[in-house]
Each structure stands twice: as structure tokens, then as C-alpha cells.
């Protein structure tokens, strides 16, 4: 069988941009978290819980986690493109990764808003 190389999917910019934007979100949240740990020293369960019941903290954490998942999607997709050559297998794996990351996102929401 003749091996046909097909390129020209006409996407890629959005993912490239997403990877950069989500990286900024993750970096900002990490610095924020480090600041809180260093300066507020939430050293026991009560203080830690008090931090996370605040709505802004929940939203910031959710944004961070969604950034992790979206960032991970672009990276994992690239790995699958490099190492899994049969297109059918790759599609199945990519769909699997997407479903997993969506499930993680929903689970994150449940965890963050279950703190009361």
C-alpha cells in the first residue's frame, strides 16, 4: 500500500495560544498560593478550609484546574501524535483523554463546591 502523507488540518494556532494563556494562569495561581502559604500560614485544617470556602478562592482554583486540564490536553495530544502512528488507535486514545479531562473538570467543581 502506498503511504500517503496528509497535512493541512487548518488548526493549531488556537491550541498554541491556549497553551500559553493557560501557562500564565497556572503561574499566577502558583505564585498566589505560595504567597498565601508563606504569609498567611494556614497551618491547620480549620484555616485551610476557611481559605477554600471563600468564593473567589473556589473560582481561582477552578480556573487553575481547568487551565491544567486544557494545557495537558494540548501536550498529551502532541505526544499521541508523535508516538501513536495508526490513526484509528490515536483517535480512540484522544477521545479517551478528552473524556477523562472533562470528567476531571466536573469532579473538580464537585470537590471545590462541596467544601462547606
Amino acid at each position, binding site marked *: 500500500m502506498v503511504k500517503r502523507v496528509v*497535512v*493541512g488540518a*487548518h488548526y493549531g494556532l488556537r491550541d498554541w495560544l491556549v497553551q500559553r494563556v493557560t501557562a500564565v494562569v497556572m503561574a499566577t495561581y502558583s505564585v498566589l498560593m505560595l504567597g498565601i502559604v508563606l504569609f498567611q500560614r494556614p497551618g491547620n485544617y480549620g484555616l485551610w478550609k476557611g481559605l477554600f470556602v471563600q468564593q473567589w478562592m473556589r473560582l481561582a482554583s477552578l480556573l487553575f484546574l481547568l487551565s491544567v486540564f486544557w494545557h495537558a490536553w494540548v501536550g498529551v495530544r502532541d505526544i499521541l*501524535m508523535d508516538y501513536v502512528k495508526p490513526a484509528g488507535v490515536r483517535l480512540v486514545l484522544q477521545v479517551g483523554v478528552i473524556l477523562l479531562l472533562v470528567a476531571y473538570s466536573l469532579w473538580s467543581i464537585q470537590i471545590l463546591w462541596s467544601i462547606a
Partner: protein
Amino acid sequence: MRFSVYRYDPDKDSKPYMKDYEVALEPSDRMLLDALVRIKALDDSLSLRRSCREGVCGSDAMNINGRNGLACITRLADLKEPVELRPLPGLPVIRDLVVDMSQFFKQYHSIKPYLQNTAPAPEKERLQSPAEREELDGLYECILCACCSTSCPSFWWNPDKFVGPAGLLAAYRFIADTRDQATSERLDDLEDPYRLFRCHSIMNCVDVCPKGLNPTRAIGRIKELMVKRMV
């Protein structure tokens, strides 16, 4: 001076091997290519490409002590002995230091490396302002020696799909040219997870370019234009 040279003749050798040479240099021998010509006189079975011997034709690109470069403009005095010479990495070896560059040129041709302009040609020439012409500096000087693309892991892995630094530098050379009218089509063509976005800006290309060009910057400009077009 001592050299260790990659030898492989697919007709005779079952696998590649390194052959050592000890060469007596003359005071006039300054560049690596001078030494290679002496080795060739000792052992005429060694195959290599060379032509202009002054860093313009791009024929004698090879891997010199682990780093891609042109033999003709690599100073012997700067090289650690034994000098290890290998063919450009990632391309099929035809024989010894000669590699098959078909894939490299295929990628270069894929970006349509020529001016596209459907406007009727003026009587003399299509003029540019000095500022417009300046945009092409650092782009048009590429001699297609393939040092950059063959030092790029993304090109090693996807040589059939990733255009590679040399091709992308050439692509930007035409995008940046005010006389070219196909900017939008060129950007469309490169908007692809493989063709352009396999570049992760590790800058091996910049590190090795014997002409001191910066493909990573050109690739960044292409991405910038795509972002500008999108937002």
C-alpha cells in the same frame, strides 16, 4: 591532526563504522575542508560534497564534533582532537558524509518559495522602499545547507510533516515580502499542528546556523501574524 570519520558504503558495508585518519597539515590549511581535501588525497574512497569552499553554496554541511556546520568555514584551530565527522543527522545516508536531502527540499518546495503576485508586471521592476527591503534581512541569506533542520528533533521525528526551520524561514521570507500577494494563503497553509506548530522553540536551529540566521524568530513572527489575523 587526528580525525575520526563516519564511513558507510551501502554496497559493501553491512553497517557504518568510524575510520581514523592522521593528517599532516600545511600552514595554509586553515579550515576543516582543507583537511578533508588532504584526507581525500590519502584515501580517495571517502565521499563528501563540496563546491564553493567559502560558505556560500552550502554543500559541505556535516556534523562536526557533534554539532552541525559547514566544513569550509569551520576553523581547524577551534576543533578538539580527534575531530569526529559524521553526516548530517536524521537524513538517509547515501555514502559516507553524503546524505539524501530529498525530504529537506520537499519541505522547502512545499512552502512555495517564490514570489506570488498576479498584478501585471511593471515595465522595470516591482519597487520596495528601503524599509520594506530591510524586512527581508536575516531571511534571504539562507543557503539551504540543512544544518538547522537536521539539528531539530521535531524535524528528525516528523520530517515528512514538519516543514522544519529552513523551510519556515523561507516561508516567512515570502510572507514578509511586500511584493508577495499570497500572505493569507501562506498563513492558511502553515496553520497546521504538524507543519508549523511542531516547533517548540528549542533554538537548535539558531545555535548551528552557519550564516548566523534566526529561524526561531521567523517562526515567532509567523505565529504573531496568525494571532493578529485571528483576534
